[in-house]
């Protein structure tokens, strides 16, 4: 057995790679066998071999074990007392792959590639990589030997390569091309206006994935698209998708699932806040683990500016890894995005202190990234046949005192902190032949400083000596105090680990002499001897640290006012309230309403609630006294922009019907909760009004705490936003040249889009009736999601909410619709609706207007607060909407204005914020009234809901009480307590030396119709609508 192994070891080297240049000199053919002996060898994070021998050759591990015969021709290194670990792998890097320059982009655009410059799937790391020795060295210093790097630019970013940090030419350092294909939601350096929002990025990806699949089926390509060509291959392989926050993880999963794809998500490190949902999607993660900076919260006013979410992130960022692991989510750790790479060790120890098993912590940096990228047969552990990329360290990797001495990359040695280097620090007797002086050396190896004095002299007379060590050759020179010209100069060798020096010197005057220095026995020097064992590998003591740490609960969502416990639907009867039924029964003065399993079960006077449950098992029924209070259905807001992430407008093209608000619902927006406190239960989240054909709406219920997808009101009809007038013709946004610039152009934009959609539909219809044989050799027509949304309108499957102001444009769109054979479901804003009310009624359009806004732009100069009343009197279904996160929580007051301006009855005015918008959204069979069978979306008001004195006391959605005034007061107190607890911890951390920063003001952006861009945060107030 041993013999055959030896035979193998001595076999001649045949494996010259095809890319090695022909030899220009006598070949270096001697085998490069290296044997490391007596090491504490960690073959992986869990397996230790004591007194082990590791033999490597040509960058490969040959053998490992504690009873290994060392081949005679091996170079032997004794690592007694030292540890060997698999080297680290960085799974998310842009090493050597800087974003492209404008010139490069120009050149790339001349190639046969996709029209959208954010799609750069043809960018291949192994082609673009430019070695970066400085960064590579920094990575090696911290123990990394391999990175997976891609160019972090664009939405489809191309492929990554696995790059060994061996400072070899790319041919030898790139050990795996096409490690993965990379994607993000950020368009990077692309100058294209599309996409300009998160939903635009998602829509572009969706269309492009469709295109790639279609492109692959083409029997003959009529055109060449390098991006699609590469994408076709990439989607069959490993995909890595970048998330900017926790909700993005779910967005990626949803998008990929549409194509039966899966992938790895690079997270933001805040996954703890949506753990169950993220676990459910089952995608492996790559997550950062940097300790966020603390804030300066010593000043109580400054501390007010640090949000609860930020405090929690500071507290939980280092707990994330433990929580992911406990949830059995596969993940690797990345150092990408850190300020200081060297902090990884400190932070890793924190992960362990916060609960993560220390072996697992190491796995997340070694075997796990290797496995994620399919490199685990070669990297991430040390076994025969694997690559010789490993670390020589002084201790356990996570030990506080650990030093990485050497990083070996593919069998190549990089010395980080030479273990054999003499350690000079200490006190010496310096024998100068004629006198013995005292020499003191301080500082770390390489940065030593020295002083000398005569032993009988006072310490104040000591002088600084110049000390220089190169290898083991030392030179030392000094002059007595006040006599700089009397220099003594010494040169000599350092012996052993540094305790004995000797050599020749020259005195002032030129006489040569022999000298020596011997470290004193009483020297404070701590012995650092490679030949002496350092003791057993010390594992960080995590149990004790873990016990000390207190974490507050994770609320859903993890912002202020989130829930600690899941809320359940109630079985409850509200008695003796004034009930606004919105049915033929009208307003009941003293009635009872019973809700059960999310529905209204009964409405009536003096209900015998138990009798309503036939059979023996009766539910427990709670009661609320509604005396003096008013009970209504929840408010339905037809026009809202709350709870939308990173951009409400994809206004870059005049038609962006493919973008979907449903892709970018933000369930963490506190305005959901604030709206509930204003009695709102259902909203239509609309795309903005920057372009004639905007994006698809989402209709959600305000189920505060649930994930984005669980907010969606299932069964709601699909909807889309259209817009007319000044916004779409870009009147108020400075110079612009995008079509259209006039209302005339707006009309033609619609006609053209719908003619296109008709043709598109016809082409697909023709294809759909072809027999299989007839399809032979032909490609299916391309699916175009932009056209599909319009085709749905033409088929009557998608309803429109159209932003509109003036009479002419309202009439125009109805003409377009009539001639194309569809209906405009709702005109929203519709401030001149009163001028064309009869035409609207004939067309069958509803109106959703503002109560009293005007004078904010020229086209609302004839806006009147009597609009709602006039429309109503004309028989148009009329609603009053918000388009504003503030006003939406007072829509009851806005409804009252329909009474004030135009004399609508209270009951009809109330329907304008409930039943009528529910009708527009096609939801009146479920919401908008209080009657048996309808969803239990209810609000209990302190007074007549149309009065200024009314406050919502409780708000139910599907029978779940998502807002309750009394509970809200408890929440406030609890938030204050939590803030106090974390703030104190933060101050303690700062006192212990943690870096900190000044608090800033967090002001999440509130979207309005005409807001462009995807910047989540803003400072300035914003007018317009």
């Amino acid at each position, binding site marked *: 057995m041993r013999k055959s192994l030896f035979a193998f070891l001595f076999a001649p080297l045949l494996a010259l790679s095809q890319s090695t240049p022909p030899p220009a000199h006598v070949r270096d053919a001697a085998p490069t066998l290296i044997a490391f002996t007596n090491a504490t060898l960690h073959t992986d994070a869990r397996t230790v071999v004591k007194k082990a021998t590791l033999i490597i050759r040509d960058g490969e591990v040959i053998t490992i074990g504690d009873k290994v015969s060392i081949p005679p021709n091996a170079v032997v290194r004794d690592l007694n007392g030292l540890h060997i670990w698999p080297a680290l792998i960085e799974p998310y890097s842009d090493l050597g792959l800087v974003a492209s320059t404008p010139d490069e982009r120009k050149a790339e655009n001349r190639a046969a590639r996709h029209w959208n410059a954010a799609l750069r799937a043809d960018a291949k790391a192994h082609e673009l990589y430019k070695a970066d020795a400085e960064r590579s060295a920094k990575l090696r210093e911290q123990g990394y030997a391999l990175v997976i790097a891609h160019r972090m630019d664009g939405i489809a970013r191309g492929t990554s390569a696995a790059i060994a940090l061996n400072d070899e030419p790319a041919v030898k350092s790139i050990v795996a091309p096409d490690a993965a294909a990379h994607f993000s939601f950020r368009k990077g350096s692309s100058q294209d206006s599309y996409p300009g929002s998160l939903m635009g990025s998602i829509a572009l990806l969706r269309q492009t994935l469709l295109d790639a699949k279609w492109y692959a089926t083409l029997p003959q390509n009529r055109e060449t698209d390098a991006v699609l060509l590469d994408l076709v291959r990439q989607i069959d392989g490993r995909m890595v998708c970048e998330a*900017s926050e926790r909700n993005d993880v779910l967005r990626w999963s949803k998008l990929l699932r549409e194509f039966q794809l899966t992938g790895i998500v690079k997270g933001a490190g805040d996954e703890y806040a949506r753990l169950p949902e993220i676990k459910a999607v089952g995608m492996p993660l790559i997550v950062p683990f940097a300790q*966020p900076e603390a804030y300066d919260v010593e*000043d109580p*006013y*400054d501390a*007010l*500016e640090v*949000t*609860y979410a*930020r405090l929690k*992130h500071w507290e939980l960022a280092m707990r994330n890894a433990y929580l992911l692991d406990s949830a059995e989510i596969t993940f690797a750790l990345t150092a990408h995005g850190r300020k200081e790479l060297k902090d990884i060790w400190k932070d890793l120890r924190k992960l362990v202190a916060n609960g993560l098993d220390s072996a697992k912590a190491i796995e997340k940096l070694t075997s796990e990234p290797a496995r994620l990228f399919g490199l685990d047969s070669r990297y991430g552990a040390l076994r025969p046949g694997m690559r010789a990329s490993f670390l020589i360290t002084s201790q356990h990797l996570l030990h506080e005192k650990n030093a990485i001495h050497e990083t070996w990359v593919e069998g190549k040695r990089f010395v980080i902190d030479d273990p054999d280097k003499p350690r000079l620090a200490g006190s010496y007797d310096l024998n100068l032949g004629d006198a013995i002086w005292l020499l003191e050396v301080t500082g770390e190896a390489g940065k030593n400083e020295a002083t000398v004095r005569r032993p009988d002299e006072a310490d104040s007379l000591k002088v600084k000596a110049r000390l220089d060590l190169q290898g083991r050759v030392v030179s030392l020179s000094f002059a007595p105090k006040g006599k700089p010209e009397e220099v003594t100069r010494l040169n000599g060798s350092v012996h052993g680990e540094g305790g004995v020096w000797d050599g020749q010197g020259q005195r002032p005057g030129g006489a040569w002499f022999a000298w020596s220095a011997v470290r004193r026995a009483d020297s404070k020097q701590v012995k650092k001897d490679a030949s002496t064992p350092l003791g057993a590998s010390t594992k960080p003591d995590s149990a004790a640290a873990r016990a000390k740490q207190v974490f507050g609960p994770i609320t859903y969502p993890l912002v*202020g*006012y989130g829930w600690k416990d899941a809320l359940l639907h109630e079985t409850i009867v509200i008695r003796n309230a004034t009930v606004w039924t919105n049915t033929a029964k009208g307003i009941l003065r003293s009635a009872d309403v019973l809700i059960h399993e999310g529905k209204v079960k009964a409405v009536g006077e003096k209900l015998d609630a138990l009798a309503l449950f036939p059979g023996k098992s009766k539910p427990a029924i709670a009661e609320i006294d509604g005396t003096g209070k008013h009970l209504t259905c929840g408010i339905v807001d037809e026009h809202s922009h709350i709870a939308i992430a990173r951009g409400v407008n994809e206004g870059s093209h005049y038609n962006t019907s493919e973008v979907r608000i449903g892709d970018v619902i933000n369930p963490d927006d*506190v*305005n959901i*909760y*604030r709206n509930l*406190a204003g009695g709102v239960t259902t909203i239509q989240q609309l795309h903005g009004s920057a372009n004639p054909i905007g994006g698809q709406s989402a209709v959600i219920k305000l189920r505060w705490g649930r994930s984005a997808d669980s907010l969606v009101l299932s069964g709601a009809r699909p909807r889309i936003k259209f817009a007319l007038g000044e916004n779409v013709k870009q009147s108020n946004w400075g110079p612009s040249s995008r079509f259209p610039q006039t209302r005339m152009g707006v009309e033609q934009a619609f006609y053209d889009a719908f003619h296109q959609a008709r043709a598109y539909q016809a082409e697909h219809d023709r294809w759909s009736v072809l027999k299989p044989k007839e399809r032979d050799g032909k490609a299916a027509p391309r699916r175009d999601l932009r056209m599909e949304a319009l085709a749905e309108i033409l088929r009557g499957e998608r309803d429109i909410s159209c932003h509109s102001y003036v009479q002419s444009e309202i009439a125009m769109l109805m003409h377009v619709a009539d001639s194309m054979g569809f209906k405009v479901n709702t005109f929203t804003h519709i401030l001149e609706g009163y001028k064309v*009310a009869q035409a609207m009624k004939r067309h069958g359009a509803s109106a959703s207007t503002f109560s*009293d*806004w*005007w*004078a*904010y*732009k*020229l086209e609302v*100069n*004839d*806006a009147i*607060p*009597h609009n709602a009343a006039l429309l109503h*009197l*004309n028989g148009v279904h009329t609603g009053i909407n918000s388009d*504003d996160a*503030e*006003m939406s929580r*007072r829509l009851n007051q806005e409804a*009252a204005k329909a*009474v*004030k*301006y*135009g004399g609508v009855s209270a009951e009809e005015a109330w329907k304008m914020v409930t039943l009528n918008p529910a009708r527009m959204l096609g939801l009146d069979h479920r919401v908008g009234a209080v009657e048996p069978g309808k969803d239990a979306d209810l609000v209990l008001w302190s007074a007549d809901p*149309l*009065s*200024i*004195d009314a*406050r919502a006391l409780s708000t139910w959605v599907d029978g779940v009480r998502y807002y309750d005034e009394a509970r*809200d007061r408890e929440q406030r107190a609890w*938030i204050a307590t939590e803030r106090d607890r974390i703030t104190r911890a933060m101050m303690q951390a700062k006192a212990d030396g943690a870096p900190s*920063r*000044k*608090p*800033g*003001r*967090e*002001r*999440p952006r509130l979207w309005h119709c005409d807001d462009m861009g995807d910047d989540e*945060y803003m400072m300035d107030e914003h*007018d*317009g609508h």
Partner: protein
Amino acid sequence: MVTDRIIFLFVALLSGMLTHAQIPTPALSQAKSILITGGTVHVGDGKVIDEGAVGFRDGRIDYVGFGYGVKAAYDTTINAKDQHIYPGFIVPDSPLGLIEIEQARATLDMRDVGQYEPELRSISAYKSDSRVTPTIRSNGVLLAQVAPRGLVIAGTSSVVQLDAWDSDGAIVKADDGVWMTWPAAYQRQGWWAEPGETDSEKKDERAKKIEELRTFFRKAKAYAAELKPSTIDARMEAMRGLFNGSKALFIRTDAAREITEAVLFAKAEGVKRTVIAGGYDAWRVADLLRDNQVDVILRRTHSLPMRPEDDIDMPYKLPALLKERGIRFCLGYTGDHEHAGARNLPFVAGTARAHGLSPEDALRTITLDAAAILGIDQRCGSLAVGKDATLIISAGDALDMRGNDVRLAFIQGRRISLDNHQKQLYRQYRKRLEGGQ
């Protein structure tokens, strides 16, 4: 005691409708004495008189009390039984008349360029015949403090009444105050994945800004010491009044730290009267404000909490918090749609009432206390003998949307038209509907 003529309110209403001009014609000065009787009189200082009466002649109030106490004879008696009589509401810190249409640049005069520009005077740009104004006053808002916006020092405001032939005729108090924005203490920042900059560099920048302001104020104070300077400096002249009390310094700021800094700054620089505008955190620094007699023009109650997890009803209850802490304040309407939206001023007061203020205290925040803070309470802000007869009669509770039904309004005794562009359009289209067109 019975007067020669009685006008019932519906008659008054009808006559109002006869006005057909696009912009209602300003009313003529009061020729005949008027007594309003039988209604609930909300004095504005906290008192309510049931079945009260208000009499006025030559534009001044000469009787406020119970109906039965009226001694003098009046030319006209208005029966306001079951109605409510209020002082005209006052909107402070408004760009009314400086903005016609927010997104039509040519109609904007509220914000200039520069940094320290106290010399910019709002009254010089004030459009007394704005089409917006009649829609404001028909909800009972009869007085406005017209204030410029932006910059570090935006300019000088004036207080106007809302029924005038021209800007000079509108003046109630010219050049009442200088408007300053205190440099923000907190920089904006993104979320943790992409934190914004909040560095010491920014901090230094701010310190520099405050130092510049200080230098500016010191120069102004030195300049003000000389009554007839040899060279006239427009900026310094505009600052003069701050140091002798003839002008107030209005400082826009919200956070506690900023308010504290601003108040101490104004005090140190010898400003005689300081008012904080915005004042979201004013309740937190109540002692400081009270000790220095600093008033507050509170930001719109109909706004969102400034910080994500502030109490969700914080803006609604700020008035009650200030009241509890003894700070004198009035309500503003700054924010989105602030010029045309000012007609909702009574409802922001109504919301304050729904969230802890007593009804008459809520009224004070848009009447007497507003007048006192603007320095016009000698003439306006409450129904008191000797004051301007600037008042409204509402069919119901004017602080509630449904009750706010202003039947008659008087400014300095002149019965103003309550018609407006919007009511005209409403009538037109109502007629169209009734005519079956």
